[in-house]
């Protein structure tokens, strides 16, 4: 039973991280209908930025709490800046191009950013400082649920609540929903669509950066290549939940995280990624609209 609960929590932790990344995919897709292939790289850059900032601060002897806060803010700021720039450089000029063009551009951007980090930093795995301390009150259950699992779950929940609030009750959230429904109509009622799209990229990137920092501190090491796999898996999660739908992305991520945890726990750990990819292929074949998505009808 302990093993089951351990797997359950590891699945939920994984699912929350996927969720933080998947939200970026699903928001961008909902608004401009583009699979933002470079999103996984934004997450990787978030992890790297927080790694660099945290290590520098710890060398200069800052207290742990200050390190966590500054590293988190820096990761979110720089990731957002990257997300904003990527959209402006690689996607905005192609907004009226055929559908394949922005996708190829996104793949190019993803390869570019990966190699940029590889060349500017290193190809080795870097040890990430343990930012999350072991809490005393977690002592009795520490062999099943780690403190970092708890912190990840709470942070994710808070981020998602904040996002829901932003989208439901603020002006920019309203503008985002309007743009997602009908871009032309949104322009007609006076919404600055360019700004809404930029805001979407910024919010998605900041969430991914938080995810990057949490998972890097949880696993304890990072590398320039982490974004690729995490990106594809988060995309799988977004598709599973129904791409374009925000609750769908969260649900899909949890399902994917749990599937992976139980499959690796009870079947075989060699095929962890194969399970995720197979799940993706199966969903796309049998239910391309996902669990909570709406089926797309094409009118001529």
């Amino acid at each position: 039973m302990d093993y089951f609960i351990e797997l359950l929590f590891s699945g939920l932790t994984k699912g929350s991280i996927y969720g933080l990344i998947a939200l970026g995919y699903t928001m961008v897709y909902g608004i401009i209908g583009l699979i933002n292939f470079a999103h996984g790289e934004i997450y990787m850059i978030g992890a790297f930025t927080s790694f660099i900032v945290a290590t520098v601060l710890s060398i200069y002897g800052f207290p742990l709490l200050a390190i966590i806060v500054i590293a988190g803010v820096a990761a979110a700021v720089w990731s957002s800046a990257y997300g904003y720039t990527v959209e402006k450089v690689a996607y905005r000029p192609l907004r009226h191009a055929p559908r394949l063009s922005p996708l190829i551009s996104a793949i190019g951007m993803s390869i570019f950013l990966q190699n940029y980090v590889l060349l500017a930093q290193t190809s080795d795995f870097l040890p990430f400082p343990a930012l999350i301390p072991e809490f005393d009150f977690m002592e009795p259950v520490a062999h099943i649920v780690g403190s970092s699992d708890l912190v990840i779950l709470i942070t994710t929940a808070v981020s998602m609540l904040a996002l829901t609030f932003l989208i439901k009750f603020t002006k920019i959230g309203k503008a985002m929903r309007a743009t997602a429904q009908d871009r032309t109509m949104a322009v007609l009622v006076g919404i600055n669509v360019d700004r809404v799209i930029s805001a979407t990229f910024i919010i998605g990137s900041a969430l991914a950066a938080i995810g990057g920092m949490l998972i890097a501190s949880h696993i304890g090491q990072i590398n320039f290549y982490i974004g690729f796999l995490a990106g594809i898996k988060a995309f799988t999660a977004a598709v599973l939940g129904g791409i374009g739908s925000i609750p769908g992305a969260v649900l899909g991520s949890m399902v994917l995280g749990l599937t992976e945890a139980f499959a690796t726990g009870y079947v075989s750990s060699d095929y962890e990624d194969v399970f995720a990819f197979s799940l993706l292929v199966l969903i796309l074949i049998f239910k391309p609209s996902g669990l909570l998505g709406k089926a797309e009808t094409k009118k001529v």
Partner: protein
Amino acid sequence: MFPLKELKRSLLISLWFAFLTFPIMVIKVDPIDRIVIWRWDNMAFVAIGSFVLSILIKVWILRKERRNLRKSTNRDITEPFVQRILREPRFLYPLCLGVLTFALLFPSLFSTYQTNIMITALMYVVLGLGLNIVVGVAGLLDLGYVAFYAVGAYSYALLNMHFGLGFWTVLPIGGLLAALFGILLGFPVLRLRGDYLAIVTLGFGEIIRLVLENWSAFSNGPSGISNIPRPSFFGMEMTFEGQIHYIYYLVVALVIFTIFVVNRLQNSRLGRAWLALREDEIACQAMGIDKTKTKLIAFSLGAFWAGLVGVFFATKTTFVSPASFSFLESAIILSIVVLGGMGSIVGVIFGALILILMPEYLRSLSEYRMLAFGGILVAMMIFKPQGIISNVRRSYKIKNKSTISE
């Protein structure tokens, strides 16, 4: 003249990029020795580089606008230079002959090392042409193309290891197996829309690689299969150099065969159906084209070529391992097609030669190769989506307009 306002804008852009690249380009930490290295020179490079680049792009845009203005007043659309040469038989045939002679003389003119590099480049030409059918002509973005390449390579390696089959027996088998995989994958997924198709093929490519890596009993795992024999020539004994030359000529033959088939396909009924499908699926179905069947043929034909090249790859390197078939390989082949010009045969050949030979000869730049590939994909989509040599559709021009109006 260059306006001052634009200069100010470029300055802001360079400041933005200096800020953007600050943590990753400037700071380098060594977490074990606890040292921070500040690389301020990198920041200067980024700032100056982005400043110059933004000015160049602006100048380019201004010039293009001016040219478009001129073009709209005088509506004579000129055909690209390369296309004109290709159209004229009196230029085309001597050119082909020249290229062919050069290709045939290549091993005797250059060293074995050069020949070996050329074999690789020519293999990518065939891969590019194969993917060109799928992506360029039929418009199906396949990101898992390397999976079919792996199927070809592994079918030779495994069939040879277990059953002792030779190169010539496996060559068609490898191609057909890859085509079969293409059909198996294509059948369920070709109903999907373009971008979903891209992701599913990407996932499929990764699944194949992961299975090859983890299923040790079948594929020998990450250590791969070595000692794959080179092709035989009627049982003749050959020196190492002779074998390389032999493989070279085989690959040249494969390239010629591929060009011939692809060229014939392009203007066939099937080729036109692919183009039509790329442009508008619904209109295409209304014209009575079987959507699934046409797409499936494109997919499996592309896979067939990847399988053939896979067998060549296995015999050339005499060793296969899953590491050779990563997603980056698919990305390289896709860059070839995009850079060359989607749908254009000559373009793809040029694209493959440029992208594969350039890093080989500029060793110092090979580190930056993948960075350049990524950059090329983005830049090509933004500035020249039709590629370096764009494909001009065969069209019929009516020469004498007055006869019609009568």
